[in-house]
């Protein structure tokens, strides 16, 4: 880890990165983009298909009005201009999981253009400009059988599932993002996080990266810090988590720097990111890229959303994440950097839900950003993927506040919750973690500790109350940490200073 970090630190002293992100979002419409088939995930292969999405001879597409509306709402939320007239286009290339061997997409007339979204990182605002937002159809999914790796190499045959073919897909493309320096990987991650939150707030997609409903391609290039000209970019695909977005940019920066340091040139190519190794491997070279022969889709009429409709959609957008963050920040009384740390950790919803479940904001923040973040990192999970609910965290915080467990015991209780042993209450009961605050039961331990250390007891009696710490420690040891240290201290002082 330290070797990688130092390599990265070395890279950014000499090179400036430019990044760009292309994000594909599967819309959560009930039916597909151009037919009535279901879009639900996980169906038996080829059960959600019809002549249209199978590309049978003669079948024709009809555009899904709900998908168009969702795309316009996305465009509005990203501060884009909405085209008053635009067309679908055919992107022609042969691929077995694409039923018609062309994809209905948009080319030079996207539905939404020229927007922006602000992301905040450690109190600094980075404005990410949006080039375009357009609507297209997803492809089917190939399954390569017979090889060891599930990849096409070594496979004996391939199966295609067309359930996904024709699901509405929105592509959101940023303009190149320069000037973020060492923070480029984090900016990339923060952007995708923000985008995900916006999409979730709009309710247009379930935005689950692991199921592929949110997919990210990351463009990266490096130039020397004093150069005005941007370097050759690569496009890293298969980036399937927020963490991977950050890792993919970082590893690509390190890789490109090594190429440039060796006096070679970066090849414009597609690279595939590998979740396990955190490295990417070269794919198709863009220099031999296919000519997609775009032309306006003759089977569909142009889209011409009415200005009044667009305004109506604008007027009914929900509270967007940035607005919500400002509201929560004020109500939780946090500084900008505190709020940014919390948002970038993906903890906003979790903390809000924890507060809603009764915990003070400060406690909720402390738990999610502290212990839980550390455990999520160790497990390689997103915070939200940890097997603990905000309500359980609130319960845990309540136990501490009530003095029923101390911080150390609370962490043990949390371990139990994460291990699936039940709610914090249940774990505390089952593991017997509750602090011993029953003064009768503690009294014996206290008396024994005083009897065992008469010299210290004498000091306390003489007014050196700080010396009581040693006696507290002894009682805690004797009770195996299960006593409430505050109560123990009170009992000791009561015995040695009152009479």
């Amino acid at each position, binding site marked *: 880890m330290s070797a990688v970090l130092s390599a990265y630190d070395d890279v950014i002293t000499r090179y400036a990165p430019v990044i760009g992100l292309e994000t594909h979002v599967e819309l959560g419409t009930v039916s597909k983009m151009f037919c009535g088939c279901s879009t639900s995930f996980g169906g038996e292969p080829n059960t959600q298909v019809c002549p249209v999405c199978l590309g049978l*001879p*003669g*079948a024709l597409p*009809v555009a899904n009005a709900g998908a168009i509306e969702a795309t316009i709402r996305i465009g509005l939320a990203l501060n884009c201009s909405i085209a008053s007239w635009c067309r679908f286009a055919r992107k*022609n290339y042969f691929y077995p999981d694409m039923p018609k061997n062309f994809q209905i997409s948009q080319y030079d007339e996207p539905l939404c253009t020229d927007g922006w979204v602000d992301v905040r990182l450690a109190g600094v605002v980075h404005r990410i400009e949006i080039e375009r937002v357009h609507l297209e159809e997803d492809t089917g999914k190939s399954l390569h059988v017979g090889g060891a790796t599930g990849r096409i190499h070594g496979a004996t045959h391939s199966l295609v599932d067309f359930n996904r073919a024709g699901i509405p897909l929105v592509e959101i493309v940023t303009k190149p993002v320069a000037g973020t320096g060492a923070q480029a990987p984090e900016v990339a991650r923060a952007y995708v996080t923000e985008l995900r939150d916006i999409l979730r707030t709009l309710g247009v997609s379930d935005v689950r990266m692991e199921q592929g409903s949110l997919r990210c391609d990351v463009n990266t290039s490096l130039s020397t810090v004093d150069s005005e000209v941007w370097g050759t970019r690569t496009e890293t695909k298969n980036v399937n988590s927020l963490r991977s977005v950050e890792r993919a940019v970082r590893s690509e920066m390190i890789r490109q720097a090594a190429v440039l340091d060796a006096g070679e040139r970066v090849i414009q190519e597609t690279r595939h990111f590998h979740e396990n190794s955190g490295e990417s491997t070269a794919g198709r070279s863009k220099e031999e890229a296919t000519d997609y*022969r775009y032309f306006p889709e*003759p*089977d*569909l009429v142009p889209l011409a959303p009415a200005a009044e409709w667009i305004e109506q959609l604008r007027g009914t957008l929900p509270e967007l994440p940035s607005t919500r963050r400002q509201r929560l920040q004020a109500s939780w009384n946090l500084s900008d950097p505190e709020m940014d740390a919390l948002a970038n950790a993906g903890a906003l919803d979790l903390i809000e839900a924890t507060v809603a479940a009764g915990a003070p904001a400060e406690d909720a923040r402390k738990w999610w950003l502290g212990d839980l973040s550390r455990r999520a990192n160790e497990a390689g999970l997103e915070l939200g993927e940890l097997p603990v609910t905000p309500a359980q965290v609130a319960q845990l915080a309540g136990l501490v506040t009530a003095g029923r467990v101390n911080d150390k015991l609370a962490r043990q209780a949390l371990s139990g919750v994460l291990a699936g042993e039940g709610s914090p209450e249940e774990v505390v009961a089952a593991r017997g973690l509750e602090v011993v605050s029953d003064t009768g039961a503690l009294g014996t331990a206290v008396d024994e500790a005083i009897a065992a250390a008469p010299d210290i007891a004498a000091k306390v009696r003489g007014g050196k109350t700080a010396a009581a710490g040693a006696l507290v420690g002894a009682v805690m040891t004797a009770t195996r940490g299960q006593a409430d240290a505050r109560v123990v201290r009170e009992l000791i002082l009561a015995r040695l200073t009152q009479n």
Partner: protein
Amino acid sequence: MTELTTMDAAALAVEIAAGRVSAVEVALAHLDRIAAVDDKVHAFLHIDHDGALAAARAVDERRATGEELGPLAGVPLAMKDVVVTRGLPSTSGSQILRGWIPPYDATVTRRVLDAGIVMLGKTNMDEFAMGSSTENSAYGPSHNPWDLDRIPGGSSGGSSAAVSAYEAPLGIGTDTGGSIRQPAAVTGLVGHKPTYGGVSRYGLIAFSSSLDQAGPLSRTVLDAALLHEVIGGHDPADSTSIDAPVPAVVAAARDGARADLSGLRIGVVQELSGDGYESGVLDRFSDAVRLLTELGATITEVSCPHFGYALPAYYLIAPSECSSNLARFDAVRYGLRVGDDGVRGLEEVMSLTREAGFGAEVKRRIILGTYALSSGYYDAYYGQAQKVRTLISRDFAAGFKTCDVLVSPTTPTVAFPLGARVDDPMAMYAADLCTLPASLAGTPAISVPCGLSEGLPVGLQVMAPALADDRCYRVAAAVEAAVAGRDGQPILAAAPSL
């Protein structure tokens, strides 16, 4: 040939509805006729004997229960193979779709069947509707009943051959650049290309999406109108389908049959004559124009200066769209698969299949279209062609400012001999010179027989503004009546018996 096979569709429907003849008898008479002559004509690729009789029986049963039947119930029809039919082969004249049985019906098929029309089978055509003679069919050409050594036109030549050979009173064709009107003209039939969007394209195996239109072929104008009303009208499954009522074409056909065109303003398109037009064709066209004057119409000359660019524009747009539309034939999901030996990779199987499955003309157009859409060439070819299209529409708009309809010969020549143009694509393409402008403009046009040249039929084309299909039918019906009055019989009566 019996009386039942020579009757027109409207008359047959009346006889069936009145119970004077059963739909089954009518179907059997036509199936017998097919059995007797189709080895000479080769109009059909697939005959659905059982399906036809079942459909006819259903009509007879409905009639027996006292149900009111539609205006074409029980009438047999020949369906072009480009139209998808559930459970019946639909090859579009290509090897690459040999053996494919569609799991769904085209909207046209659905509407035909729902009207109680009896589909006899699927008719031959140039592969994927690319051609003017049926000689590009992967299954051998059809023959013109007027002269078996001549072409029946194309691409809907199977349907035109079937209807002119009395194998069926009705045929469905599709027209991309003239593929209904030209076969109608050279076989002595009526053929109408509706306004683009007037008939659903859902289930037509696409050749050129922005041009394809299905329409009727028949021996009378009224029959064509009756079939048009059955298949026309809005279809939510086709986004380019027009959401408007079907023009009142049947009423227009009946009105036109009174042979009175008083006050109608007709424009003769100057550009659709001259070099390359047979003198016999031009003479019959002049006769027809004179006839129109006698019917009370006023005739003016109209110039459409951009019609001359229709052919090059068409041969960029149609191949471009077809290069994309035909990409789906890749051996992965249906149709022909060649070379899948477990050793060859996917790309090679795709290539071998397309190499074996497509004929020469289809390949020519795919290559042409692929080139025209290539980055760096798009603006010069596809883009320019679209601009020409706009200019042609403007020519029409200007013409329709002063005229109600425009007229021209349907084709520059009568039916040419089989084989005469197979090695000369440009000569073959010239067969569509007169029909291409209305295709590119998306406007309706009809071909109606107007006389004979060298013993072969000549067609008059009547072109109207978009959505004014009724004008085509009105003028065509008037011409039909006037010609029969002049000659003492319909044009088709002059055809030799097979």
